[in-house]
């Protein structure tokens, strides 16, 4: 099995970089809940995309890169967001 941790770290960094430019005034509890629901929904449909793990005996049902980039966006928005 290949090691996808480097991609996850780079996704986190890019997400953080973009998230740090996001304004906070448009976000409240409702928007966070909607983001989480939409994120889980789309993540499940993305599945194993983009197929870093080519070992078919160990199929991951959700996209780790998507979760990582979403996490990076959240962290970037909370730490560096305006």
């Amino acid at each position, binding site marked *: 099995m290949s090691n996808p941790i480097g991609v996850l770290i780079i996704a986190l960094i890019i997400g953080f970089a973009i998230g740090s430019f996001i304004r906070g005034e448009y976000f409240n509890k409702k928007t966070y809940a909607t*983001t989480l629901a*939409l994120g889980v929904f789309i993540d499940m449909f993305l599945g194993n995309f983009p197929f870093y793990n080519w070992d078919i005996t160990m199929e991951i049902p959700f996209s780790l890169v998507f979760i990582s980039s979403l996490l990076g966006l959240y962290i970037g928005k909370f730490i560096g967001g305006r």
Partner: protein
Amino acid sequence: MKFENFQGMRNLVAAIFLGLFSFFLLDALVNFDPIAGASYIYNLKGPSIAPNMITVILFDWRGYDTLGEAFILITAVFTTGILFGRGVLGGDISSQDETPARRPTVVQKIFAAPLVFIIVAFGIVLTLGGHITPGGGFQGGSVIATAFFLSVVVYGTKKNIFNISHKGLIAFESIGALIYLCLGLVGLALSGYYLYNVGANLYPGLGVSSTIQSIFSFPDSTNAGIIPYLNIGIALKVLSGFCTIITILAGAEKHE
């Protein structure tokens, strides 16, 4: 000579050149003779001159193609700035209306911010998987730029979700272009060919320790070399280029 006479002469010269161009184009199309088995030759010889098939397809076919696309995008940004950039790049910005043309509806207000998050995350996924799946830097950058476009449409130019200035966009675009061009130079330095995929990865040449190499190696059984990093650079470039175009077009003003 009066301008009207000169204009007639110019039209005549243009017509002659257009006729010549049309003749040669038609001639080329009629007598088009494809080389039989060119793809077989390429598939046979490709892996022996490039590290792997991913390099052959993604780099040889798309590396220079993407470089050309990047320059086209730069030209597009320049042209848009020259034609419509007076509202943003010049003139009195303080007098501009900061609100969007139409006030956002409730649905737009609720869904715009979450959708921006989702679209950006999906764009990052496309960018980072571009070397093994359909996608890549250009597509990922375009998808991320649609998030910016959505926020500009809903919240206006000045108070959109992304708090990034025109200078910031220029910095991002420059960084993306520099990443791409410098990675091309790495290929030139190590192999003698510009944009050559150096194969294994960049780290051994840079003297990075094996532990860090194992962490930051892109997971790919056939090893994509520098292509993922090219994708990141081109994504930054395309993202900021499109965002600049959107900003310029959204802030365009009519001047008599």
